[in-house]
């Protein structure tokens, strides 16, 4: 595929995913495993694309829960840059991930800019409401933020993908080993931030033993994620039965 077309498509994808059209749909479009599918289709190398996507997903898995919509890092920007570049340069997933981390951080600032500028449209909507112009409110809620989003999101991804692999390869070659290793460390620690945020959101300190149980079920008993989901759910349901009795489950409404 021509690099120009690929860069345009990735720019458009990033814009559309970050547009957040469809509350729980777009939040999945932002995830590296889903970006991997898109890159796989346009690059023709589905397997490597999905492998890099999966590796990157692990870094950002915990960062899905964002109270108040504040992203602590942007998996979509990282994915829209690292996956296509990684696939084109035939990088190992680890190197592509190291490449992605700085972009994930950059994405935070882009989103803060968007949400600051979006305030303009609320004031426009105030004026439309004064005139009972419902069409105007709909435009302020959908069309104008979409145009703004395109202006601040498309160029970043387009430019980096277009300038392309050669620049990135050179950059990676000049980076010292200790810097690359520090990226790997960040990649290893960042999920901890995501999980910590999630635990904080759940906000039940007294239930922390369940966190410990889940943790050591993997360390000692070698559970995989599916096994943990099954046993975790059963434990929760059994405890609910004990604590709340049967009537809590059966007398619905």
């Amino acid at each position, binding site marked *: 595929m021509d690099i120009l077309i690929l860069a345009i498509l990735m720019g458009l994808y990033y814009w559309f995913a970050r547009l*957040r059209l*469809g*509350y*729980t*749909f*777009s939040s999945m479009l932002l995830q590296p*495993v*889903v970006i*991997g599918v898109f890159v*796989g289709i346009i690059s023709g190398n*589905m*397997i490597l694309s*999905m492998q890099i*996507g*999966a590796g990157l*997903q692990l870094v950002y*898995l915990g960062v*899905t*829960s*964002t*109270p108040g*919509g504040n992203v*602590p890092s942007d998996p979509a920007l990282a994915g829209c840059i690292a996956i296509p570049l990684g696939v084109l340069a035939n990088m190992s997933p680890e190197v592509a991930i190291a490449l992605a981390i700085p972009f994930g951080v950059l994405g935070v600032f882009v989103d803060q800019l968007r*949400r600051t500028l*979006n*305030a303009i449209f609320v004031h426009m909507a105030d004026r439309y*409401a004064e005139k009972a112009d*419902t069409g105007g*409110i*709909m435009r*302020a*809620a959908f069309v104008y933020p979409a145009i703004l989003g395109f202006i601040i999101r498309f160029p970043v991804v387009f430019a980096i993908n277009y300038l392309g692999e050669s620049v990135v390869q050179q950059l990676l070659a000049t980076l010292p080993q200790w810097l690359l290793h*520090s990226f790997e*460390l*960040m990649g290893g*620690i960042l*999920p*901890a931030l995501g999980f*910590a945020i999630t*635990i*904080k*959101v*759940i906000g039940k300190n007294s*239930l922390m033993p*369940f966190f410990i149980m*889940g943790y050591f079920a*993997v*360390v000692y008993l070698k559970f*995989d*994620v599916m096994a*943990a*989901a099954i*046993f*975790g*759910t059963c434990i*929760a349901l059994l405890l*609910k039965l004990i604590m709340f009795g049967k*009537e*809590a489950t059966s007398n*619905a409404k």
Partner: protein
Amino acid sequence: MRNEDTVMERSSAITKSDITKSMWIYWLGAELSNSYERLQSLIFCASMIPILKKLYKDKEKLSEALKRHLIFFNTEGTLGAAIQGIAIAMEEENARKDSGSSAITSIKTGLMGPLAGMGDAIIWAALMPIIIAVFIPLAKQGSPLGGLLPLILYPAITLGISYMLIHNGYQLGKISILNMLKGNRMKSIIFTANVIGLFMMGALSASYVKLTTPMVVVMAEGSKIVVQDILNMIVPGLLPLVAVYGIYWYLTKRGPYYSRILAAVVVFSLVASILGIL
């Protein structure tokens, strides 16, 4: 007189499809126009348009209703559908009797906090990472299903919940929802979600936080001690657990300074890499 009344009622009657339409607008744009100033106010107002246009034929009244829904609003968008349902029922009541439009605002503000807390814990902290994590092994093998299945399942499940909530909210009205929130049933659902969520966070932390030390202490007589081996002898997987707990502790004690923690992780990684301790 009575005849007129029924005609009035029929002309303003909200249909089931109007309510569903309102749900779709909110779902489509809940984050799209989100701003730091008033968060989801703009989309909540936009989602009420199909309803308000039917209820208020008078331009002045329509304008007033639109402005009423442009005030600050923010909640978790999936469970937030319940608030929409209630707001629709109350607007309908208000249009009929012109009674207490301030009640609409106060019930919205009263419900948005608790529903946001519950929604974040159930929909975002438990449901989403679990759906993604379950299919990661597929993605690792290079299968596109690892991405496509979460992309389909997550919206389908959350939309189903929203659909149920907006229609129930409309039917039940504000009092029943408040009772439901206080009731035992809700408590038991939240408890179950919390336990599953925390158990999974533990499992995911152990699977995906990667932290080991290459440190080797050389003793005076020349024998080497590999620090990671000693750590493994005490408790395997201790370092990742310390990382998660340390950050969690900071979040609880100091507050949600994500950027600060992010910066700390970056600096820490650089220093640890240069010193060769991790």
